[in-house]
């Protein structure tokens, strides 16, 4: 059979007899759809990804059922109380019996200055007392200021009636009644 075919040795279309030249295809292909798809995927993944890992703030609280009888006593002159009230109000005072209540705010000229000043006393202990009307943001702001000023001797304390009375006494003179917290 092979011999028979010798006259058609040239690779070509046997039916038409036309020699196929091997059509020169362009090496360029249309990449537009591929690019479209790639761009679509890219956009999706950029949007879906969580690039920013959440930041966290460490908080360590004292053990709850600890025996409090052996706790060291602190001179009240070395105690700075920061009371967080509603409406983003902050009050602070040193000591308790002779406390001079001052009002400040969460800006760097307010609370931060108070804390920086308090650092002149090395023995200073800071009590943070958030009232029931304060928000989580107030608490985080305060804790953040403490961290910024690298004050490690602080306690997250309870808002007591004494604090309420002190602040009411302060705001009572100022005309504006204190935010009641029930």
């Amino acid at each position, binding site marked *: 059979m092979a011999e028979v075919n010798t006259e058609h040795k040239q690779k070509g279309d046997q039916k038409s007899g036309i020699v196929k030249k091997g059509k020169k295809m362009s090496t360029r292909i249309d990449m537009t759809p591929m690019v479209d798809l790639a761009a679509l995927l*890219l956009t999706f993944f950029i949007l879906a*990804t*969580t690039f920013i890992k*959440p*930041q966290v703030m460490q908080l360590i609280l004292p053990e709850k059922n600890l025996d409090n009888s052996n706790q060291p006593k602190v001179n009240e002159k070395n105690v700075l109380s920061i009371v*967080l009230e509603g409406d983003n109000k902050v009050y602070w005072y040193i000591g308790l019996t002779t406390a001079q209540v001052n009002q400040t705010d969460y800006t760097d000229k307010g609370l931060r200055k108070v804390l920086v000043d308090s650092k002149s006393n090395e023995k200073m202990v800071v009590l943070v007392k958030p009232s029931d009307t304060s*928000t989580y*943001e107030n608490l985080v702001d305060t804790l953040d200021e403490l961290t910024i000023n690298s004050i490690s001797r602080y306690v997250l304390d309870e808002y007591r009636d004494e604090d309420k009375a002190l602040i009411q006494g302060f705001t009572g003179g100022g005309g504006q009644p204190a935010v009641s917290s029930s």
Partner: protein
Amino acid sequence: MPRLVMKRHSPVLDMTPMVDLFFLLVTFFMMTTQFSPTEFVVVTTPHASAEEKLPESNNAVVVIGADGTVFFRTDQAKHVKALGQKLNAKYNLGLTEAEIEKFSQQKGFGMPLAGMKQFLNLTDEQQKNIAMPGIPIEDGSNELTDWLIYTRIVNPDVRMVIKADKATNYPVIKKVMDTLQSCNINRFNLITDVEAKPTT
């Protein structure tokens, strides 16, 4: 004067480098992406200058919405499944094997345990539309305690995280912190948003 003849450019441009780049980026994002967990509530965390990053796994997150509803989620399906089995046994929820499997697929929880069985039998669509009442944290019916204790039992390496909205009232936060403390969890993390650290 010779006419200035603009050279005719072919309208086809070589897209190969662009495609290369695109695929490189696509591959990169595909590899690195980690789908952000969807919360039941929109939580705007407060800003703070904390720079510590939260690791990707072994977190137990207590999510607190602005209105004080409490949600709970933890990662890794096998731990969630074990957690489901423990809670099922403790509260006699009567969950079947299949329901516990469904439990482990959940992205988070925000309902009293009594309603758990009913919730798990809803379709995904229904689950999305239902309003979550939150995990009870009141004294006497504080179910969050059990969520926390059992999470710790099934995964001792778990890290406790509080993610609260900045407008949340303090009493709710205090209650959650008290709950954590009563479970002897005294070290935990608060999720905050980025804020530039002051230079002074």
